[in-house]
């Protein structure tokens, strides 16, 4: 992979990948951080990456593994947030966004992952199975259960009430 190919991959997929990892982790700063690190590793291994059929999937998988592995032994949450740039002035998240964030956070990680891969990455059951190493049948079950659990969570009247628990 040469510079032009890497730049094209980065410019076309970085934001999309951050959105995907955000849906998986619920933390936009962390998502930006791990996706950036995944691209660093991609460039560091660009020779090997030249043989990869789907480089974006490779970066996504690396970002996901970074998000759940123990490589980032940060001292505390201060350090986790420290890496972020200054906040971008944005409208306050709407209630729907908060509700969905809360619902996603409470899904089983396996369910959340297959839902995000299916809905946000447009991957088929077979493709999810190939990326996650899970049997196709297991992916189907997790997709079904995750969808049901998410729908159930979203039908609850007011997840904001949890702030006042």
């Amino acid at each position, binding site marked *: 992979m040469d*510079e032009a190919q890497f730049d094209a991959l*980065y410019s076309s997929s*970085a*934001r999309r990948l*951050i*959105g*995907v990892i955000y*849906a998986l*982790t619920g*933390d*936009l700063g962390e*998502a*930006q951080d791990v996706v*950036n690190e995944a*691209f*660093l590793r991609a460039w*560091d291994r660009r020779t090997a990456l030249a043989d990869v059929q789907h480089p974006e999937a490779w970066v996504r998988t690396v970002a996901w593994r970074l*998000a*759940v592995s123990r490589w*980032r032994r*940060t*001292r*505390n*949450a*201060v350090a*986790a*947030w*420290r890496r*972020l740039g*200054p*906040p971008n*002035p*944005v*409208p*306050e*998240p*709407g209630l729907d*966004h908060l509700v969905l*964030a*809360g619902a996603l*956070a*409470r899904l089983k*990680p396996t369910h*959340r992952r297959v*839902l*995000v891969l299916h*809905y*946000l990455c447009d991957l088929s059951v077979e493709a999810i199975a190939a990326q996650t190493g899970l049997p196709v049948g*297991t992916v189907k*079950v997790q997709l*079904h*259960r995750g*969808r*049901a659990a998410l*729908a159930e969570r*979203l039908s609850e009247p007011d997840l904001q009430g*949890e*702030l*006042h*628990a």
Partner: protein
Amino acid sequence: MPEDDGTAELDTPELDTPELDTALRERLVRFADEARSALGPLPPAQRVRDDVRRRRRHRITTSSLTGLAAVVVAVVAIAIWRAPGPDVVLGQDDHPAVWLLAGWGDGPLLKIDPARNRIVATVDVGPSPQQVVATPTAVWVSSESDLRRVDPDTATVSAVVRSGPVGDLAYDGTDLWGLGDRRVLRLDPSTGAVRGTLPLTFEPSGLVVTAGRVWVADFRHNSVVALDPVSGLVTATVAVGEFPTAMSFDGHDLWIGNGLANTLSQVDPTTARTVRTVSLGDRPDHPFTGVPSTVQVVGSTVWAVTLPHWLDGGWSLVGVDLATGKVVATLGAPGPLGMIATDGRDLWLPRRLLGYTVIHVDGASRTTVGDVVAMSPLPSS
């Protein structure tokens, strides 16, 4: 009855309707789009490539210098330098405002009027702010690059008094204390002038000051160390839980948040013994943040921010009764919670999702109060 292998649910097609499928897809796509639109400009690809080159050079340089540094460190004597400082004049009442960093390392300083429950000013305190502490005449903000004095009345930065990284801050009524690079700084609380330096032989991860002792957390050795505030000599070392990072003092005991154990250690500073260890929940299943990440005593409760399960649940603010050591409140939030600020009665802490909001917690009832304070768009100072 045969064990459910999960496939039975596939025979309930009412949950797999195209309508539900489409609705969930649309909501998730919109959710991710909102997140993407909240991003600032991403660094160019060129910078990513440059970072890889810098990282490689750093690896080479680091390995070369490590041996040399070890020799140098072995022969350098650590001196204690103390400069005489002026007497402290405490001529003003505490400012009633609550000062809060809007994020961890990325937000402005907020001045909150607790009576109105409103942000009345925001202060740009530069990159990577770490902690804020108010003294009678000044508000101090530490960062990775400097220590800044903020005028509490005008809510403006009045001075950058020190360059170099400064971590945790503490004010004992006489001195302002700060964590520097392997040392504790003793500063004039009004001007920031250095009154003394206490060298450390370890990398500090937390700071609190009690009568006659400066307590510093040592996260590498799972302990807190007491220093004589004048000589800098170590007078006690107390073993606590794994990865101590956050500390607070209730006037009698120390409370230490153990970042990889999700526990609080209650330490009697007089006897230098751990009185009690309080579990705040499961051990964290991740190393991303200390759990608890911030600890603050407010009234009869010590509060801690925790995130035991990175993916399974949201962040929580957990309250522990000082007298009983029992968990008496758990307030959940879907987004990351920041550092706790208090006026001695209530708590405010930032919550981040796409933008920032501030959660206001009544210290007496241990419940959230009304609506969160809208922070976006931020009012200008």
